[in-house]
Structure formats: C-alpha cells, structure tokens
C-alpha cells in the first residue's frame, strides 16, 4: 500500500511540472498583462515601472523558477497572495460541490437502481426523460430558471447572493446536484442492467434469492467500481469551480476567481488555479484507486 502511494505521488510530479510549463508558455504567448494593470493614462515609463515591479522584465527562467520553488506570488491586479485567494475560493466552492455531490449520489443511485429494478416501465421512462433533460441543460441556465421561478416569482427561496448562510446556497446546490444526479442515474441504470444479465445473477435468483436482494447484494457491489470512478471525477470537476453557476448565483468560488484572472491576464492566479485543479484531480484519482481495492478485492495495490 505504502509503495503504491509513494509510486503514485512520484508519478504526479511530472504532471505538475507539465502543467506549470504549459500554463507559463501559453500565458507568455497570450501577451503582456501590463496593459490591463496600468492606468489608461500611464506613460511608457510608467508601464516599464509596472513591468519591473511585477518582475516581468526578468529573464523567463527566473519568472518560471519561482513557481517550481512553490512560490505562487501575489496577484498582479489584486495585490494579495495568490495562495490565499485560491484557498478562499476553494473553501466556498467545496461547500457547494460536496453538498451537490451528496444530493447527486443519493438521488442518482436511487433513481438508477429504481429504473434498473423496473426496466421499461413508466418509472424507467420518466427517470430517463428527466435524466436526458438534466444532462442536456446548461448549469447556468438551470440556475437562472430556478431563481426566476422559486426566488423571483414564487418568492419561496431567497435570490442567491454571496452570503455564508445556507439558504442562499439552495439554488446553486440544487442546480449542480440535479445535473450530476442525471448523469449518475443514467450510468447506474445502464451498468445495473448489464450486470443483471450476468450468469451469477441468474444463479442467485435460481437459488431462491428475491429480485431486490439479488440486485442490491449481488449485482450492485459489482457496478460500484465504474460509479465510484465517475463520482470521483465529477466531484473533482465540481471542486474546480463552476464558473457559470458561480456567476449566475453570485457565489465567490474558485471558478470565478480563476475566470476573472484569465480575463485580467493575472498570470500568477491562473497558474495557481491550474495547479490547484491538478492537485484536486490527482488526489481524486488516487482516492478512487484506493477505493477500488476496498470495493473489489481482485484489485490489490500491493502487487
């Protein structure tokens, strides 16, 4: 186990190096950030001073080297440490993402199992129709529609705003939760139906096990591997921040921090954000891999 962990951690180092290199190269190609930082009336000398104070006139390898030393530096435009900007955004995003994922896992698995238990019935068809809607509708649009209906017209919920109170997070959490529910429900249903046609299921049924019990105790554990993979990557994607939903719902999350940085050419924040996404994805994959061992004894990490 320890060897596995160590190996995986070592494997992730080239990933981080690659990301820093690619981001840095792309940002350098995208142009000079001074124009956005400088006042429109700034003279050439003043712009040169800004470049100097941001270290943009230093050799490229010095500018790049900083990131390898783990120093993300300060935001060009917001004049504060990138690390704290990302952590503040990530904390807000994590709250929404984890809540949304909890909803998605509960509803998605339940609805998927229900569809698989009663395939080609009204339950299955309506679940499929709702899932198709959920998979196809864009998040920001759903957020706006939910706000319009429940907050503006019916006045049942408050309009989302950047407040720590849970009541303001209901709409964004519901939006992201429902969208991920749809994906999980479809996946669970399809995997379960495939699994239910396996020989061991028929054997279990022949030995007198009830249909529900066969499904839950025999077939379901076997579909958990692909489902866990999807939950892991979906959660990682959510933790990276949902720019559009965060904008539509005024959530001060990571997606907005990074998006704003991109439009402002705030290079340190963009690189910091990308590194953070990489850490999240690498960790999520690692956790999922560890879970495989728990879920399926055939996958052993010490070999």
């Amino acid at each position, binding site marked *: 186990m320890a060897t596995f962990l160590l190996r995986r951690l070592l494997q992730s180092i080239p990933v981080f190096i690659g990301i820093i290199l690619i981001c840095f190269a792309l940002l350098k190609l*995208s*142009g*000079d*950030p001074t*124009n*956005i*930082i*400088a*006042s*429109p*009336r*700034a*003279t*050439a*000398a*003043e*712009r040169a*001073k*800004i470049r*100097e*104070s941001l270290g943009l006139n230093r050799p490229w390898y010095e500018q790049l080297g900083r990131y390898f030393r783990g120093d993300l530096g300060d935001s060009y*435009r*917001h*004049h*504060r440490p990138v690390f704290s*900007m990302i952590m*503040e*955004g990530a904390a807000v995003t994590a709250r929404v993402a984890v809540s949304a994922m909890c909803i998605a896992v509960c509803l998605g698995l339940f609805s998927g199992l229900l569809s698989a238990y009663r395939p080609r019935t009204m339950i299955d068809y309506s679940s499929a129709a709702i899932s198709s809607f959920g998979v196809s509708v864009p998040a920001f649009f759903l957020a*706006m529609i939910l*706000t319009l209906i429940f*907050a*503006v017209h019916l006045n*049942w*919920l*408050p*309009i*989302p*705003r*950047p*407040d720590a*109170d849970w*009541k303001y997070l209901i709409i964004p959490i519901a939006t992201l939760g429902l969208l991920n529910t749809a994906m999980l429900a479809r996946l669970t249903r399809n995997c379960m139906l495939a699994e239910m046609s396996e020989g061991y299921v028929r054997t279990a049924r022949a030995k007198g096990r009830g249909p529900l019990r066969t499904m839950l105790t025999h077939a379901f554990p076997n579909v958990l591997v692909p489902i866990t993979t999807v939950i892991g990557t979906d959660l990682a994607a959510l933790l990276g921040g949902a720019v559009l939903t965060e*904008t*539509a*719902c*005024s959530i*001060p999350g990571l997606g*907005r*921090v990074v998006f*704003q940085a991109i*439009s*402002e*050419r705030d290079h340190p924040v963009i690189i910091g954000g990308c590194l953070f996404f990489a850490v999240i994805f690498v960790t999520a994959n690692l956790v999922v891999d560890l879970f495989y061992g728990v879920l399926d004894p055939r996958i052993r990490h010490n070999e």
Partner: protein
Amino acid sequence: MTRRIFAALVVVLAVSSVTRAAEGKKIFRIPLSENPPSLDPVQIQDVTSDGVARKIFNGLVRFNAEMKPAPDLAEAVPEWNTADNSYTFKLRKGVKFHNGREVKAADVKYSWERLLDPNVSQRTQILEPVVGAKDKIDGKAKDVPGIAIVDDYTVKITLTGPSPTFLLEIGMVNASIIPKEEVDKAAGAFSRKPCGTGPFKLVEWKENAKIVLERNADYFLGAPKLDGVTFEVIPAPQARLDLFQQGEFEVCDIPLGSVKKMREGHPEWISENSTFRTNYLGMAMNTIADGKSIPADPVGTNPKLREAINLAVNRKYICEVILEGRGKPANSILPEGMMAHSNDLIASKYDPAKARTLLAEAGYPKGEGLRPLTFLYKNDPDIKKIVVSIHHDLQAIGLKVDLQALDWGAFLERVGKEPPDMFYLGWVADYNDPDNFLYYLFHSRQWGEAGNETRYKNPEVDTLLDNARKTMDQAKRIELYQKAEKIILGELPWALMDNRINVILLQPYVKNVKGKLCPLDVGHYLNQIEFSTVDLEK
C-alpha cells in the same frame, strides 16, 4: 414528510428575513459587479474600487457640484503663487483618522511621497509636476523637496511650473491622505485594511462577497446620517436587478434591454445624469514603417474616406434603440458641461447619400477597389450590439468591413501597438478639464498605448495643447482648447459616436442623492456624492 421539511424550511426562511429587517439600522446597500481589486488609494484605477474608497478616504481637495476644486481636508482651496510656482495648503484642525489620530502636515507628505513611489503606486503621474517628483519616480531620491512641511497644519507644494490641472488631479481618490502607522501595521496589505478620514470606516471585507463599512461618528463634516454602507458582489446584472426589485439594495444599474421596462414600470426609481464619457470610432491615422511615421493606408491617407465613414453611421438608432436612450449623438469631443465645450460643433451628421458620394470621390465608388477594413472591438455583448449596427451602416454605403473581437487585454495591446483601420472605444474624464481629453488622446507625445491610439499627429495641435498646459489663465486655455478641438474634428481621426447618459435605479426613500449626481458619476456607485449627507427615510 417532504411537506413537513418544506414547511419547516419556509418557517426558517421567514424568521431569518424578519430578523434581518428588525435590525432597524439605516444601512445603504450597494451591489458591486466585481470585487474591488484594491482599496489602497495609490493603486486605484477602476470605478468600482473608487466607488468604495471615496466613502473611506478624503484628499486635500474634492470636486464640488460644478466639479471645481473645493476644500476637503484643506481649510480652503489655495491660491496659486506665481512668484515661486507653489500652493500652500492649510489643513483643517482636529480631523481624525479612523484610528483616532489627528491628521497633520506630515501625513500629507507621507501620503504623497508614497503616491510617487513606483514600487507601490500605479498613479505616479498625478504628482509629476511637483519639484523633485521625477527623481522620486526614477528611484534616485527618497525625499521630494517640492512637498514641504511648514508647520503641523501647513504644507507647501512647489511645482516645476504652472500646472492648471494640478488641483483637479489631487481631487482624485489616489491623492487621499492616509496614516503611515496603519500602512506599516498592515504590512503590505493596506489595500485590504484601508484606513482614512472618510465618513465610513471598513469593518469587514469578505473577498468576492461583501464589504461592510460603518459610520465614522467623528467625521469632520458631521456624523453621517447612515449607520453604515454595505457592498455585495453580485456579478450577474440580472441578479442585481432582481435583488433591487425585492428591496435588497438602495441603488442599482440596469442591464441593457431592461431600461424601457424600468422607465415605464417604475419611473419613481429612475435617476439620470449626463456623463463625461465620449464613445468613438477611432481610425488609424499614422503608422510606423522603418522607424518613421507615415500616414496609415487607406484610412489615414484618405480624408474623404474618413468623412464618408463619419457620415455613414446612424447614431440616433444606436442611442435610441440599442442604448435605449442611454446616450445621445456626440457632436464634439469634449462632452457637454465640460470646460471649453462648444455647442457650435456638429461633428456627427447622418447622411448616407453624401457618404456614398464622398466614397466615390475618395476613389472607391461603391467601395470598389478598397480592401476590407479591419474593425476591432472589445469582446463584450453590449458593445457588440453597437458595433454590429455601425458595421451594417458601413456596409450600406459599400464598404467591406472585417469585424474582429478581442478580449480587453488583447484589444488594448493590439490598439496600442499598431492601430487597426477602425476600432470602437470610449473615454471617461477623470475630472472637469479638457486637458484630460485632448492632451491624452491627441497629443503626439501620447502615441499608442498612452492614449493617442489613432496616432494622430498635428504640430499645431501639439503646440496649442502644450501652451494650454503652461498657463493658469482659464479664459486663455478655453480659447486654446476650442481651437485645438476644431482642428482635430476637421481632420476626423475619430468618428464621434455618443455621449453616454447614466441611467440608474434609486429607491424612492433615498435622500440627498437624486439630482446631485454629476457628469463624473458613471455607474451606480455614487462616487462623487458626499456620503455623510445621504439618508434613508423609510
């Protein structure tokens, strides 16, 4: 069960909203479109940060209703001393910073030397006319001899020569007076822990979410009538409007497309003011080839082509239909209400028939023989609507136009380095002086990214603008600027588009704001309003 949970949720929400209203404090709530990048005066250059900071800080002078310099921390606006090119400021006595310490002359010296320090400041040019400023900016000197402390309440500012705009420059938020000990205490984070002398002081700043200010009971112009001001970051324009309509904000902007609805449905909310913002279609006048400037082909070399473009655009349609009445066709570079503005200029006529004739006279009948012209604009849905309308008008006279959208940074870089044939931009004055328009945008010294993006060059205009900078005689300056503007408009480096009208929403119970907004108030942050006088009468 579900019903019960839902009922419980409704009760919780109802109770929490009751407690919110029951606080009974007079809080002025303003939605922000973005988190202010910095509240350190020397770093501020955007309307949002300025809107928050002006409630926290004061400078020596401020702008009065006529946008002329008026006393703020200074007892009076000083007279210009021609003998030694100086201003002597007498400070009000007993003015206290938010930390309780009295403002003294040494604070002015500290704040302004900091404004000249390029390591922290991004607005060093404001104090450039001060003796010794250049050495400080270049890092050659620590002290600025032009800022001299006479006694605890007197500061003498010596300039290198007459500077007619100096008192206006220092009326900007960047020249605010701040306490050294708080800057030191914040250890590089003064932009997050601002401390000034203003009517409100910062209590809490949740990044990207909320900024809470509370009243400064010791404010030198009298304790504010409000208990506090809160700003909330709501990036989506429609969400801001929805919240305003639910009574969650006292002021709000209006997303494009909703102005008509608001005017008709809620005329009691509407507040309008003209602004010092001129939008224009810039045309490439000159370009650099082999280190020399030559007229840019074809727009810069062909005045008739520029005139045809100018006559082809239907500004009335843009102002009335696209902007929903939030602009009026601009006839002069200097907006209405600005010093030296002239009503006699008519720079924007709409005459497509004449435009076609001129195009033929320019050598391109129906646009034949002319390559497609590049038209660059900032990638923004609202600007795109205007640009598409201009594009349509230009095509109607036979011009082939290649529209290109770029994000703001790339747009500025492209326009600053090498102007495209045409580009759409706007300029908002920092204060009421033509220098802020004409010098920055048309003097050949300002070529490229410094402001003169069309690379307009006329030695006569340069001389007029330079002379207007050297004299303190306002009547003479007006004459010089009017002359310069006439010459510039005759050569048409810009096809003027519109002067923007600021239309915002204000709750009817807000007192002392409506009717007091000046042309420097762009947007809904009420930047120029003296906030200690604002009240809510619910």
